[in-house]
């Protein structure tokens, strides 16, 4: 005698292997999209944080004009600190455009002042421009708001697109599971009918399918998440190997939040699979007497 009873719903290896692969692939893509979405949103926030309160003033004129402008900026309301950038710092800023081979010493560089404003908006670019204009100084004040908002909008759109991808992949997964449950239900109608006529309640019969698809979803989701982790780690490795910046593209990192996305993916896949199976089975059973 066998020590344990065989499951009432037999395993269907071929069908379930195909379904496992599909759910795994969907979970991989969904988890990767989730990582990209999170990365895009956090990059947008990071950029916004970096430039918030940072003001750059470009002074047209000689060093004396720059010194005067610096004094005015330092004493302007809402300014926490201000300093004139050294030529070396200006050269560093131009390096991505002019190359690392060195900038000619006689090349005139703009006189730049970097200021930090206190939160609250007392020191806006309009106010600082007005102060400098009143002192007859020709300067352009940029608080980076327009640029940072554009960049933030772009990265948020990228994040939204990734979230939509997650949603679509999730919906596809649900449809696939529902279809597979229905196919299993049709293939195993003999078991379902027998259990029904033996007095099994709908919940009991649905439970057989729910458990089956919960396990399938969790296992396939775990493998998909693991592959997504591997893919993300590989991309990070490649970027770091090349020591490159991906400028406007969101940069992947494997943080706690990413771990949470990867960890939750199998659970979400399992629960979604279970619910899809339950709804499909209950709907089919309602057609029976």
């Amino acid at each position, binding site marked *: 005698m066998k020590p344990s009873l065989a499951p009432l719903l037999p395993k269907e290896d071929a069908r379930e292997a195909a379904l496992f692969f599909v759910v795994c692939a969907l979970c991989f893509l969904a988890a990767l999209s989730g990582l990209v979405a999170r990365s895009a949103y956090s990059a947008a926030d990071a950029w916004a944080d970096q430039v918030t309160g940072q003001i750059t003033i470009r002074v047209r004129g000689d060093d004396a004009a720059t010194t005067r402008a610096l004094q005015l900026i330092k004493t302007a309301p809402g300014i926490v600190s201000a300093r004139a950038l050294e030529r070396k710092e200006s050269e560093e800023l131009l390096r991505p455009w002019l190359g690392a081979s060195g900038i000619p010493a006689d090349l005139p560089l703009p006189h730049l002042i970097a200021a930090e404003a206190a939160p609250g908006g007392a020191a806006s670019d309009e106010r600082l421009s007005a102060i400098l204009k009143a002192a007859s100084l020709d300067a352009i004040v940029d608080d980076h708001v327009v640029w940072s908002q554009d960049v933030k909008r772009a990265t948020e759109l990228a994040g939204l697109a990734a979230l939509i991808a997650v949603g679509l992949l999730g919906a596809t997964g649900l449809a696939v599971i529902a279809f597979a449950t229905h196919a299993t239900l049709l293939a195993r109608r003999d078991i379902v009918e*027998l*259990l029904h006529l*033996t007095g099994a*309640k709908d919940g009991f019969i649905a439970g057989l399918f729910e458990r089956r698809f919960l396990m399938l979803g969790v296992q396939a989701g775990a493998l998909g998440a693991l592959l997504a982790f591997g893919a993300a780690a590989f991309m990070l490795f490649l970027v770091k190997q090349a020591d490159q910046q991906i400028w406007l593209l969101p940069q992947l990192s494997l943080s706690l939040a990413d771990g949470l996305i990867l960890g939750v993916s199998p659970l979400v896949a399992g629960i979604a699979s279970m619910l899809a199976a339950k709804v499909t089975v209950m709907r089919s059973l*309602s057609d029976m*007497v």
Partner: protein
Amino acid sequence: MRESSLTSDEPVIRLDRIGLSYGPEADVLADVSLQLKAGSMTFLTGPSGAGKSTLLRLAYLALRPTAGRVSMFGVDTSRLSRKDLAPLRRRIGVVFQEFRLLDHLSAYENVALPLRVLGQHEKTYRNDVIELLKWVGLGDRLDARPATLSGGEKQRVAIARAVVVKPDLIIADEPTGNVDEEMGDRLLRLFRELNRRLNTTVLIATHDLAMVRKARTDVLRLADGMVVRVPAQQVAAPETPA
């Protein structure tokens, strides 16, 4: 008998002017009425296509009639929701014509299936199921899958499965259709024992008039949409050549 709203005179099955049709086609059953008393053993006979199996399906609550009323154990099933039919089904053991054994389960597991549906733990029924399989002569085939069983063995597993929960009513559709005469006699003895020992009501649909005669019990004959009760004495009388 377990909890029941049934009084001693109330029939286990009561069909009142039952009609059944699938779509606009001719009625499968029309205006059929019958009653079975608790503890009775009854055969249902009739020509092929008369609707015996359909009548049984109505009795084991696999179908709802399109006209008339089906009462089981004193409960009018037409007033019950799907959910409320499940407890009634648990009081009925069905031996299906085509066995309906699950191929991936052993004989033991097939017999234990209704107990699993009831949520019982295997420890509580293991010995009972083994005893039951011994009673039907399959004590040495506990682990056998249906594919390795003969027709008679499958039939006995199906019977064991039908009686394992000690139902109030057993419905069997052509239980001797796939077995030889000797096995048919054994199966008949099983049904009789169940009927007498446990006071289980038994309804058997069959073409096997020889078995019906041996049983010496009342017969319901279904033909042309009518059910006629034939007394045991008339059934037992030897046939006269035409």
